[in-house]
């Protein structure tokens, strides 16, 4: 069960850049082993911090323009957007506590 919705290039503007709260974006691909590990971690963050942030996934294979626009050359890449701007970026598969620490200012009170 996943709480993160898939977002494609045409939805990115409305779902991420114009969102009314911070959005964690998981840039991933099928062929990326560590990406498979990050999925469940972000699902957990999404459900525990549902009031503060939204979590979405962008498949870089299908949405190369977005990956290129943000200069992404490594995945898993987990970016936090707020007010249409990248506020935080985290590269590589990291445990939940590490991501929560990096994104703490945007996760609100638990």
């Amino acid at each position, binding site marked *: *069960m*996943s709480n*993160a919705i*898939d977002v494609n290039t045409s939805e990115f503007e409305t779902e991420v850049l114009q969102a009314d709260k911070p959005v964690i974006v998981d840039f*991933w*691909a*099928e*062929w*990326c*082993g*560590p*990406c*498979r*590990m*990050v*999925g*469940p*971690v972000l*699902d957990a963050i999404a459900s525990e911090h549902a009031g503060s942030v939204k979590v979405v*996934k962008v498949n*870089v*294979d299908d949405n190369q323009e977005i*990956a290129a626009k943000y*200069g*992404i*050359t*490594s*995945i*898993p*890449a987990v970016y936090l957007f707020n007010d249409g701007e990248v506020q935080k*970026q985290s*590269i*590589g*598969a*990291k*445990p*939940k*506590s590490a991501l929560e620490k990096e994104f703490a200012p945007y996760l609100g009170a638990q």
Partner: protein
Amino acid sequence: MSPDFTPALSLDLGATPPGRPDHGQRPAETGDTAVHDVVIVGSGPAGYTAAIYTARADLNPIVLAGSVTAGGDLMNTTDVENYPGFTDGIMGPELMATMQAQAERFGADVRYEDAIKLELEGPIKEITVEGGEVLRARTVILATGSAYRELGLEDEKRLSGHGVSWCATCDGFFFKGQNIAVVGGGDSAIEEATFLTKFADKVTLIHRRDEFRASEIMQKRAFDDPKIEILWNKRVIGISGEAKVEELSLEDTVTGEVGALPVTGLFVAIGSDPRTHLFKDQVEITAEGTVAVDARSSRTSLPGVFAAGDVLDSTYRQAVTAAGSGCVAAIDVEHYLATVKA
């Protein structure tokens, strides 16, 4: 695991580990927490092999597989051609999923959790996992593997994810038609370089010496590949670029001459260091930084604490040697438990 995020392999990483009866647990000597026979920290070939053996010995192992590192280094590889038993090779992630399934078949309790603190002295060991739960066990097998080494350059971290990478299988895709570099001289460096030629126009392999450590078959692959150029006796001393990698500074290790190499990506494959930060103050560590063990056994300097895989091996570091080492640790655990319970 969400249906729209299905891994290519049937590795069910999001699921709750299968339950099993707790018939192997006995009441603790003090307090009321169960004391397990064995907790295995790590889930590469060493950890899973130790799990297969200890599970078959009815020791009900708990495997702390890691929340994002389950399966270990082989999860980041493609074809494994030298693991015995697979005539045509096997994909690294598939091999690890198979090992996990084999361990679980005999009742190993594989948990996608991270150990954050180990108390290894005394007859009962305490393992704290992320989230605060404390596991108690008579024995612990340290199978934490090793972590990729970094170049240690100022701009390496800043440009990580923007041209600097440690995982060719993850990131090669982003360098289609580009001119990139790999630094290193072992099997993994050459494997990365040859893999990256699928995407890049040109791959420059930078090595600080004038010969490779890599196996002959891997070297031949690099020499025969028209897309790979080898730069001998060069050390990367700088990475530059505003938002992404644009250029490397290279120093000749013989003449000291410094030059520039324009590339858009740098893959770092200069080896790895044993992952010992959780226990290096408790068990003896060798000069190489590996866990010290007694002769060919897996026994560390602490009774009831055993080690397996790359964490004790700075020389061979193969999937099959790690698996063999996991087997050794499992058998040592069995012997130890027979003594302390006698």
